């Protein structure tokens, strides 16, 4: 059985992980970045299909790969919000944002916001949003890398996080966007192959169809309709039916909307569309990206049904063996009617456990906690254990681990790019040190990438509390801040800087407060940290808006910053009174923190428009720029008769 003295699973896992990492490094060396164009946008010459693949890998994170099928398996219909939400956003991107942002032709999202709203303050607000969203997100990816390493290669989480971070750093620093793009193409191939192989085998075993999407609507091998028998079984065991949800309709609606709009507003997704040669390619590329994403996203709900059915069939009412639980050697003799060997193997990792509490020798899987004997059931099990559940060879397990790592690393690299460009390009070159050369900017970008990785390593090893709320934060904030500002910037010429700043700030603050109140709770320390972050933001604003904001405005900013600083100090010292965490019955209109981005977005739209119409129209050059980005051709221009200034829409 053993190869070179180690178990086959460990052998294949190590082989796949080392080989794929070697490929990523090889690509990085080949695709070194020489100019800022290469570094930020891969020289604007990535083929739309390749960019689609890279976008798919960038987009699908450790959570999409490892957790999503499991979440759907447990939540049934409620899991649909992730499926629709994380794909529907690409329609918004392709129709409303990507081609116009590509025609605009700069490097970053804050670039667009700063230029379109002719304002350093708007640029700084955008930088702050981009940094906060990306840091929340990257910490989760690093954690995923660490867990994959520790579960399968038996190295400590810390070491796993550091190894993963060094690989990402290597190709991000060396190759910038160019290196990241081509490694992401390779990573997409690894992750989709790794996801599909076990899914196809599972579909064959359970439904007889090699296509999981057909298995989804098909019958089980014994001829009974799969979904209906799953509904019946679950109801008998006391669970709600798989095709019924438990969430309120308004909440499902709000979450799906927040995820869709948030997807379209996420900076690491948007910048991928800056790398294609022209505006029409940005549209095509979004279509290709969604095809590549849809392959996994339409397979995952099928895997969810197979896994949940299979789990109940093989585990519920199976004979529990204490001997097999304690001694791996005894697991070879397990047969029909026994709790399967994979259950005991995963029990060893702590992700799964059972206890025969009523002493009948069988394991009961029930909704009622008093009767349920499956005492520990981690949702990630369903993807990770699939190869073993399906009785697939050890190399498939190794492949799945390599796939999970590819998903986590590709997303981390995209986020790293946003952080590095936000610091070097937007903050340093455009705001703080305007005289920088290209060479200096590249150096700062690389230093910023290193610094960001160090922070990500720390956050991956000691995950801060907000990482658990990453979905709510990243998508809610992107939906409530970036999307309205970019959308109105393209489609409403009259939108001005006052409207944009007010809208982004309101959306950001209100959404963040709601999420913190209901997901983390405002303890004195949390209040202190929030006030500290806000104070830092105000200090950057004060330095960055010299010449734009007058004396009274600067005084006001200084007073607010000082007030926040004092609040931060009091909060961190524990002097402030805290608030209890909000409960679900206090939700606004019954909308959960995950869905609140929709409300924040609506609010941001209203404030942006109201403030815009009450303040002066944007300058002529800016309105002309909006016309230019609406025309894909670089050579066609709208001819204006000089004496006839067109009224703003």
């Amino acid at each position, binding site marked *: 059985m053993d190869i070179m003295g180690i178990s086959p699973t460990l052998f294949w896992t190590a082989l796949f992980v080392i080989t794929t990492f070697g490929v990523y490094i090889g690509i990085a060396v080949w695709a070194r970045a020489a100019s800022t164009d290469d570094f930020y946008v891969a020289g604007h010459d990535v083929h739309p299909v390749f960019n689609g693949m890279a976008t798919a890998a960038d987009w699908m994170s450790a959570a999409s790969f490892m957790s999503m099928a499991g979440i759907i398996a447990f939540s049934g219909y409620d899991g649909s919000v992730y499926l*629709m939400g994380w794909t529907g956003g690409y329609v918004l991107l392709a129709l409303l944002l990507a081609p116009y942002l590509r025609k605009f032709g700069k490097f970053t999202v804050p670039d667009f916001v700063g230029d379109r709203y002719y304002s350093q303050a708007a640029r700084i607000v955008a930088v702050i949003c981009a940094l906060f969203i990306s840091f929340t997100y990257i910490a989760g990816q690093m954690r995923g890398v660490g867990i994959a390493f520790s579960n399968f290669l038996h190295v400590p989480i810390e070491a796993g996080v550091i190894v993963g971070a060094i690989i990402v750093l290597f190709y991000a620093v060396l190759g910038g966007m160019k290196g990241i793009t081509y490694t992401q193409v390779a990573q997409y191939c690894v992750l989709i192959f790794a996801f599909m192989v076990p899914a196809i085998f599972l579909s064959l075993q359970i439904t007889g169809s090699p296509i999981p999407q057909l298995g989804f609507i098909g019958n089980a091998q014994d001829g009974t*309709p799969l979904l209906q028998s799953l509904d019946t079984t679950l109801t008998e065991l006391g669970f709600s039916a798989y095709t019924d949800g438990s969430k309120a309709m308004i909440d499902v609606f709000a979450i799906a909307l927040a995820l869709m709009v948030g997807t379209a507003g996420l900076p690491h997704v948007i910048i991928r569309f800056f790398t294609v040669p022209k505006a029409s390619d940005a549209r095509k590329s979004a279509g290709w990206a969604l095809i590549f994403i849809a392959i996994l996203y339409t397979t995952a709900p099928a895997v969810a049904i197979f896994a949940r059915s299979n789990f109940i069939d093989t585990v519920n009412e199976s004979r529990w063996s204490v001997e097999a639980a304690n001694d791996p050697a005894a697991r070879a003799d397990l047969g029909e009617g026994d709790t399967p060997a994979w259950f005991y193997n995963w029990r060893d990792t702590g992700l799964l456990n059972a206890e025969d509490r009523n002493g009948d020798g069988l394991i009961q899987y029930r909704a009622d906690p008093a009767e349920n004997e499956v005492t520990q059931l981690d949702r990630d099990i369903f993807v990770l254990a699939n190869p073993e559940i399906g009785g697939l060879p050890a190399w498939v397990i190794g492949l799945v681990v390599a796939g999970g790592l590819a998903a986590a690393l590709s997303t981390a690299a995209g986020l790293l790019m946003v952080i590095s460009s936000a610091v070097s390009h937007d903050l340093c070159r455009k705001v703080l040190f305007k005289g920088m050369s290209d060479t200096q900017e590249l150096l700062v970008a690389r230093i910023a990438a290193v610094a960001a990785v160090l922070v990500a390593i720390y956050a991956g090893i000691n995950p801060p509390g907000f990482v658990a709320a990453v979905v709510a934060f990243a998508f809610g904030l992107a939906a409530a801040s970036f999307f309205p500002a970019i959308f109105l910037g393209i489609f409403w010429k009259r939108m001005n800087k006052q409207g944009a700043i007010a809208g982004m700030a309101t959306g950001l603050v209100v959404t963040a407060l709601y999420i913190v109140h209901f997901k983390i709770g405002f303890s004195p320390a949390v209040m202190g940290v929030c006030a500290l972050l806000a104070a830092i933001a105000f200090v950057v604003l004060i330095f960055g808006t010299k010449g734009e904001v007058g004396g009274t405005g600067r005084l006001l900013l200084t007073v607010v910053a000082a007030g926040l600083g004092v609040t931060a100090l009091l909060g961190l010292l524990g002097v402030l009174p805290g608030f209890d965490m909000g409960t679900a019955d206090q939700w606004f209109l019954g909308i959960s923190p995950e869905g609140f981005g929709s409300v924040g977005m609506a609010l941001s739209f209203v404030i942006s428009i109201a403030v815009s119409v009450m303040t002066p129209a944007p300058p002529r050059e800016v309105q002309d720029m909006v016309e230019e980005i609406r025309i894909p051709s670089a*050579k066609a*221009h709208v001819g204006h008769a000089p004496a006839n200034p067109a009224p703003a829409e």
Partner: protein
Amino acid sequence: MAEAPENGEGGAQGAHDISETSFKAYWRENLTLMGVLLAIWFLVSFGAGILFRDFLDQFSIGSAPLGFWFAQQGSIYVFVILIFVYSALMHRIERKYDVDDDQG
């Protein structure tokens, strides 16, 4: 419906101006197309998958209730089609008004 481009004689080869009326007509056609496609986008996801799910669940596709199928499969397929349809139709509109980026 929309007027033909007026200043198209420059062709996509060289720099050229398009008239303001032509630009407005181009943009209006784009917005109409977008509106139609976004209506479909809304109908297959928020409509079929959420608001009218209970009604659609009385029908089924294979062994899956139709509303549930739209929420977990159908909406995603339609999303993909929508993007490619937009890409193709938008390209036609752009050529009609001589603002396409075929030559850069």
